[in-house]
């Protein structure tokens, strides 16, 4: 009996894993960073707000809410997203709360942003030390967390929300028209 040449054994051993690596690697979105917070309770976010009050995310428990990490320098993404947030907050007023977390921004710049693009009336935590951003694992604004009434993170969006993606996430929270 004649054995097949060794290369027909060695080549598949080398090429099959390589092909598999390339195939699975190319299918992945390099910008997608899965958040370990999804499925877990949202860490308590507390501190001073843009309007000078002290605020804690624990006061939001009982209704679904959105936590939006944003910055006035985050242009155009945060500007594009802003009407989507305002629309959701007004459309589901009383059934959905919104909490802003400023990411590496000054209160003055953030206020100017809200004057210019519209103030939805929800609180914005200042996070001057960057601690809240670390608690949330924020890598760059805008990032948005969808949290259910029990305080469990249901989903995380990296990058601006559109009306369509917002509707999908809100449906996951049980909010739809």
């Amino acid at each position, binding site marked *: 009996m004649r054995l097949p040449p*060794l290369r027909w054994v060695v080549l598949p051993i080398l090429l099959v894993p390589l092909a598999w690596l390339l195939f699975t690697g190319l299918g992945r979105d390099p910008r997608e960073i899965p958040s370990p917070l999804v499925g877990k309770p949202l860490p308590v976010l507390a501190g001073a707000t843009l309007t000078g009050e002290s605020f804690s995310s624990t006061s939001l428990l009982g209704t679904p809410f959105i936590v939006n990490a944003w910055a006035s320098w985050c242009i155009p993404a945060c500007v594009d997203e802003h009407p989507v947030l305002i629309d959701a907050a007004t459309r589901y007023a009383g059934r959905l709360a919104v909490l802003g977390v400023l990411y590496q921004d000054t209160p003055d710049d953030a206020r100017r942003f809200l004057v210019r693009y519209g103030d939805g009336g929800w609180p914005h935590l200042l996070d001057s030390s960057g601690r809240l951003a670390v608690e949330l694992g924020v*890598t760059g604004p805008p990032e948005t967390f969808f949290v259910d009434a029990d305080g469990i993170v249901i989903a995380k969006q990296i990058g601006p929300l559109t009306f369509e993606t917002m509707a999908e996430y809100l449906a996951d929270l049980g909010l739809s028209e």
Partner: protein
Amino acid sequence: MKGLALPVAAAALLALGALVALEVLRPTPALSPAEQAQQIAALLRCPDCQALSVAESHTAAAGAIREQIGELLAQGRNADEIRQHFVDRYGEWILLAPSAAFAWWLPVAVVLAAVVGLLAWLLVGRRLRPAATEPSAAPPTTADRQRIRDEIERLDA
């Protein structure tokens, strides 16, 4: 002179073994908290920059993480617990060195497998190949020669 070779080789081997043992067994000097923090920060990815560690970066996020490393060390948490603290928030993405053990031995295993495979290929291939001196084909027959002549004539025509 020749009788000395074995004892000398044995002594050299013993000395080498002693050196290795000394290096391995030598107690590592206790690090100061600042050095420990630096070591941990050097293996965490800076969240808001490209290809920099938390230790190297001057961004606000890197600063916040460095500050938290210091606080966690002061609370008596060890390096593994602190790394896990950030993995729980950012995911494995934050680590600059993989934590899965197989990630470390996989490249070694691949290189070993390649060396073994190459050696096997060379050795087995040599044994299976017919001797090089053996003519690979029979000399051309008269018919072959006639055909070559015909083909050349056709090309020249």
